[in-house]
């Protein structure tokens, strides 16, 4: 609503002129667009989960195996009648710790599948990279590839939504794995690096040694429905870009001088927030 008051020479109010604009339709359209974006991002996360079943199964199997082994060991020690109470205590403690670890894995899966991406918090991107690489490690191994990290120990924090940043990294890692499928296993390498640019910007790059990006227009890969994969929908990198831009950042794709692609994500750093994290 906008308006103004007209007064006479003595300052008395004589007239009020106003106009009201109904922006409900515009607001409704904005909300609908936002909803559609969230829906697409959610579908992308669910689709990624489908590609990572081996890793999730492994992550969950490890603690469950340890629990089953410890329980069997305790039963056998008891049957032999010679169990040391301290050892039994240790076995039980380990079972508790492993069941908590299995619970953490399930909570992680649920947070990725949930429709709402969550809230923004201060994030240490080195830790997010390390956790994400661990999460996909079994799929990386089963595709006879290697992921290595080169992390800046003095990386400033960023204000971001954890699940969305994980989603960005997972998309980039899965794309890199797909791009290297035709290579001999010894050449299938992904290098994930982090660095900060004068403390204002945090930069994360995912580099592969695969087929590279389209030579004429490398940034075409960020367009909706652009895909070089036979089964690709062409939405992954478009969603990645929209996530990064919604965080006030940028993403560019370049071809490496020798071969392969390098995707570079830049996010605004939160000043005065530096994390010291050991490189994985």
């Amino acid at each position, binding site marked *: 609503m906008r308006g103004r008051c007209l007064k006479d020479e003595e300052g008395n109010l004589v007239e009020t002129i106003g106009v009201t604009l109904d922006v409900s339709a515009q607001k409704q359209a904005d909300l609908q667009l936002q909803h559609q974006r969230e829906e697409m991002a959610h579908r992308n996360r669910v689709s990624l989960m489908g590609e990572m079943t081996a890793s999730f199964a492994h992550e969950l199997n490890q603690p469950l*195996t340890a629990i089953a082994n410890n329980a069997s060991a305790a039963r056998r020690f008891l049957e032999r009648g010679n169990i040391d109470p301290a050892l039994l205590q240790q076995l039980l403690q380990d079972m508790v710790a492993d069941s908590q670890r299995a619970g953490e894995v399930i909570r992680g899966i649920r947070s990725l599948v949930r429709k709402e991406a969550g809230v923004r918090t201060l994030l240490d991107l080195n830790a997010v990279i390390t956790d994400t690489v661990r999460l996909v490690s079994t799929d990386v191994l089963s595709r006879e590839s290697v992921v290595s990290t080169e992390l800046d120990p003095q990386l400033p924090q960023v204000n971001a939504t954890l699940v969305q940043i994980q989603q960005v990294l997972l998309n980039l890692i899965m794309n890199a794995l797909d791009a290297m499928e035709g290579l001999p296993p010894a050449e299938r390498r992904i290098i994930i690096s982090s660095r900060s640019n004068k403390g204002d910007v945090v930069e994360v790059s995912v580099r592969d040694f695969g087929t590279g990006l389209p030579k004429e227009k490398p940034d075409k890969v960020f367009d909706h429905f652009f895909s070089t994969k036979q089964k690709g929908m062409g939405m992954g990198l478009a969603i990645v870009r929209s996530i990064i831009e919604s965080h006030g950042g940028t993403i560019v794709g370049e071809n490496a001088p020798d071969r392969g692609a390098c995707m570079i994500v830049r996010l605004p750093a939160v000043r005065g927030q530096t994390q010291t994290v050991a490189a994985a």
Partner: protein
Amino acid sequence: MSNPNQADEREVCLVDDDPSVLKSMHYLLASEGIKVRTFGKAEDFLAHAGTHRVPVVVTDIWMDQVTGLEVLARLCAISPKTRVIVITARGSCRAPLQCDRPGCLFHEAVRR
């Protein structure tokens, strides 16, 4: 868990990069009265196998630095008489085919 300075010809070597699984397998075999030597890294095990007699090794197939099949191949050159049990949480079409060296038992059902 194990004293690296003493090797016992009756002990079983365990190789797994997951500390919880490694420890629990140690307890499981110990509950049967079996002597166990554990290795969290395949490289450490291969160094041990180069200088000690290893009758049996149980190794995980999916590890971060090296796969159980690579351990198997390198062990074959270092210690051809070592019996190898390769374990995995999930089936792989290729794994049993590559585990066909004499003395190698591919066991898929350990992880349930």
